């Protein structure tokens, strides 16, 4: 009988010991990330029938298990993926937001200084220091464009390197999960008991993986996890893993893409849609939704400014009496053939109308019969036959050298290098074309009251070849006139309308009042017209003219739009990221409420098991004393 008591006492002692060490383990891991508290599952041992009844045989510990709810775990993982994605997007876009934060350091002051410089020239056209200062402000404007573009370019390189490190982290997590799958299924097969700490480690790894990319888990019968990413690509299946790799974009050599390497060795680029959530998803989304459009938007302002200023400048006359050239040099659209193209065709793109330019990139695809041009910002497609080439869409004119192979594609980025490729074309201040190349005059001795306006050069450039040919308008009566001069065709007997536009050789002027018969007016070259600033005034007026976005916005307006878009998106991300943070906190708290260690609870458990241990010891002591009684009888 005493042996029985002794063994009952021993089972109690063992159970109390297990309870004490499990409690200590919980206390020790109270701050371990991903740790789930463990509890001892204890039951009464199988009783023995002694004829007079069943005698209890003490206690036994059936298992030590962790308190973990799969459903809450999955919620936390998914909340983590969206929070990390939004956070990484937000962190990135904040860089642009901060870049544009200081109104005195952005593009606006440089833009205003440039036009102030032009206005100064308009007020003092023959003054070299004014001209020099206008050229210097053009240089600063270009430098400002380039520095902003440079910062955006750095960000794009930063995104590339972060994508690479994120991919290697994902691969490392995948390997660790596969190894844990192996260890867990082995342990479970061997003992039939759950390896609690390994399970915690694996769940924590899945959570960490979700910080990098959204991953879904399917639990298998043997306890291992299959992990899928993107559009269902398997990352871990049992003990085997597939790899993510980095590839240079086939259409843009400066861009790193994420590719999926299946277990059979084939690699496929995962598109943006397949990489939602997590740090990696946030980076990719930032690049395509904000960074690239930002580069394009800035480029569009630069190209718009340069082209429209150039166009007006070429209609003017410089201090040396020559027609104006270009004031700015500007970047051409970037065209990249897909590296997988099989044909040898090359595509050329040029900007034909800055007013129609958008901030989007375009993809040109050939299906063997027709071309399809897709505007990537909204996926608007234009299909046209090869006979329609050269084709102009949104102000960009495309041409193809020879027929490409069916399936070949090209990426066209009209404005991406606009800001970085901007330059000032002239260094000699005398070459600023402030004057108009023609001037009009009423002949001395006219007897009527007719007056002629100063005259202007017709847009667009290039100016008419006969622009500066002397032309005489002679009135044969107060209502009719003849025109003579090279290029005019010398028409006679034209009807005079007071204030009506008279236009020849690429210029326009108006005559008003009542000319008398015999009166004449001349339009001719503006020889030595160094005090004339008509063209500089027109250049200055461009500052407030709506020259971009199909006549809806000025340079400053386009830039303000860009700033407000970045501001709005940053604000939106600030809000959504903070909301996702709240969701994540809630999900984490639910997990913690279920699985986390509460030290007060453990303290009371510690007391409980300590007392149980002491009681079990007492039982054994009594059993030993009973045995002593028997021994005494024998003496």
């Amino acid at each position, binding site marked *: 009988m005493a042996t029985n008591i002794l063994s009952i006492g021993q089972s109690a002692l063992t159970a109390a010991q297990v309870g004490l060490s499990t409690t200590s383990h919980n206390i020790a891991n109270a701050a371990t990330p991903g740790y789930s508290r463990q509890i001892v599952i204890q039951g009464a041992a199988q009783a023995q029938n002694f004829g007079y009844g069943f005698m209890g045989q003490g206690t036994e510990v059936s298992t030590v298990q962790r308190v973990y709810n799969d459903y809450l775990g999955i919620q936390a993982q998914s909340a983590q993926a969206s929070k990390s994605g939004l956070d990484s997007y937000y962190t990135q876009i904040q860089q642009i937001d901060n870049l544009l934060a200081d109104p005195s350091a952005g593009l606006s*002051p440089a833009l*205003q200084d440039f036009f102030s410089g032009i206005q100064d020239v308009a007020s003092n056209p023959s003054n070299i220091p004014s001209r020099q200062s206008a050229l210097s402000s053009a240089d600063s404007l270009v430098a400002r464009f380039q520095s902003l573009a440079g910062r955006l370019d750095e960000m794009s390189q930063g995104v590339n390197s972060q994508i690479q490190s994120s991919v290697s982290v994902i691969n490392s997590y995948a390997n660790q999960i596969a190894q844990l799958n192996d260890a867990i299924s082995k342990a479970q097969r061997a003992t039939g008991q759950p390896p609690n700490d390994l399970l915690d480690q694996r769940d924590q790894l899945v959570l960490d993986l979700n910080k990098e990319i959204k991953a879904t888990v399917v639990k298998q019968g043997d306890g291992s996890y299959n992990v899928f990413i993107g559009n269902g690509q398997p990352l871990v299946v049992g003990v085997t893993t597939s790899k993510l790799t980095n590839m240079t974009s086939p259409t843009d050599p400066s861009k790193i893409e994420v590719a999926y390497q299946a277990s059979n060795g084939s690699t496929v680029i995962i598109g943006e849609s397949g990489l939602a959530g997590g740090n990696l998803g946030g980076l990719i989304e930032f690049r395509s939704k904000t960074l690239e459009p930002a580069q394009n938007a800035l480029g569009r302002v630069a190209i718009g400014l340069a082209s429209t200023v150039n166009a007006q400048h070429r209609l003017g006359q410089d201090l040396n009496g020559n027609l104006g050239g270009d004031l700015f040099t500007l970047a051409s659209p970037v065209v990249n053939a897909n590296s997988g193209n099989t044909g040898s065709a090359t595509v050329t793109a040029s900007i034909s109308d800055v007013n129609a330019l958008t901030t989007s990139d375009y993809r040109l695809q050939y299906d063997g019969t027709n071309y399809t041009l897709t505007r990537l910002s909204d996926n608007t497609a234009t299909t046209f036959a090869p006979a329609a080439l050269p084709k102009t869409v949104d102000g960009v004119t495309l041409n193809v050298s020879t027929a490409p192979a069916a399936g070949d594609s090209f990426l066209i980025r009209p404005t991406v290098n606009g800001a970085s490729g901007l330059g000032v074309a002239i260094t000699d201040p005398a070459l600023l074309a402030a004057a108009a190349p023609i001037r009009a005059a009423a002949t001395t001795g006219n007897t009527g009251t007719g007056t002629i306006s100063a005259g202007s050069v017709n847009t667009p450039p290039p100016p008419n070849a006969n622009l500066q040919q002397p032309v005489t308008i002679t009135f044969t009566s107060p209502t009719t006139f003849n025109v003579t001069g090279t290029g005019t065709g010398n028409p006679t007997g034209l009807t005079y309308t007071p204030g009506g536009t008279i236009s020849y050789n690429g210029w326009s002027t108006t005559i008003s009042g009542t000319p008398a018969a015999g009166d004449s007016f001349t339009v001719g070259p503006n020889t030595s*017209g160094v*005090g004339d600033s008509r063209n500089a005034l027109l250049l200055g007026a461009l500052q*407030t003219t709506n020259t971009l976005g199909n006549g809806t916005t000025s340079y400053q307006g386009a830039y*303000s*739009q860009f*700033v407000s878009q970045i*501001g709005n998106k940053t604000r939106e991300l600030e809000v959504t990221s903070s909301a996702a943070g709240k969701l994540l906190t809630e999900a984490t708290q639910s997990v913690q409420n279920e699985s986390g260690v509460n030290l007060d609870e453990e303290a009371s458990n510690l007391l409980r098991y300590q007392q149980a241990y002491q009681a079990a010891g007492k039982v054994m002591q009594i059993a030993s004393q009973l045995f002593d009684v028997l021994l005494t009888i024998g003496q």
Partner: protein
Amino acid sequence: MRISTQTLFDSGAARIGDLQSSLYKTQQQLATGRRVLTPSDDPIAAARALEVTQSQSLNTQYGTNRGYAKDSLAMVDGTLSSVTELLQNVKTTAISAGNGNLGDGERASIATALQSSLDQLVGLANTRDALGNYLFSGFQTTTPAFAQTATGVQYQGDQGQRLIQVDSSRQMAVSSQGQAVFQGGGQDMFKTLSDLITQLNTPGTTGLSAALTTADNNLVLALNNVSSVRASVGSRLQELDALDSAGSDKNLQYSQNLSNLQDIDYTQALTDLSKQQMTLEAAQKSFVQISGLSLFKLL
């Protein structure tokens, strides 16, 4: 509800972190005086502020341009005032030349005086501004407006009017073309003077009185012509003054606009600051108290 010890610490620390970052932001706003620190703080105000800044900078530039315009017009006005004075002197001299008691020699010496007036008049017509530009030669500011030739004084400029952008929609002519000033209004000052000189150098009094009458009539026409040009210059100067005062009004308005868009409301911000400070202190104190509660302390 069961709460894990970690949650207690995590949420306490997170809340304190949140409060600290809003406190930091308010402090930044107070330190810079700006409510909009980055475009994301108020995207609409940030974009609007850029536009207003451009309008303000343009307004300032128009002010500078008006300064140039005033300089040019004042220069024209000053020159024309000298021309008026000169013409009045010539008129007096011409009248004195009609005195029947004068002999050929005396008339010849009057002619010499008038010759010097003519030279002076050509000089005035070829006045240059501070930058060395001829005032009255139209666009050809490096070409003297008038040159003395064998056939008299000839205009060498053109009919171009130099314009300056003095307001958003106002380009003002700041030059007067010489031909209209000196040879307009039905007379030619230079010819009037040289004809008179020729007559006075001619011995005898044949045709003298008729010539003097013509000269006098022409001088009246010339004076009228100059004063009408001066009136137009004067009215432009007046317009510039009016634009200046409108410009400074606008400038004030733009500054106010900008301030409304991006500057901080100090009362509001200081109230926020003390509110946030109080909340943070409460959060810190309660966190320390709650995290100090542990059963282990009592074991």
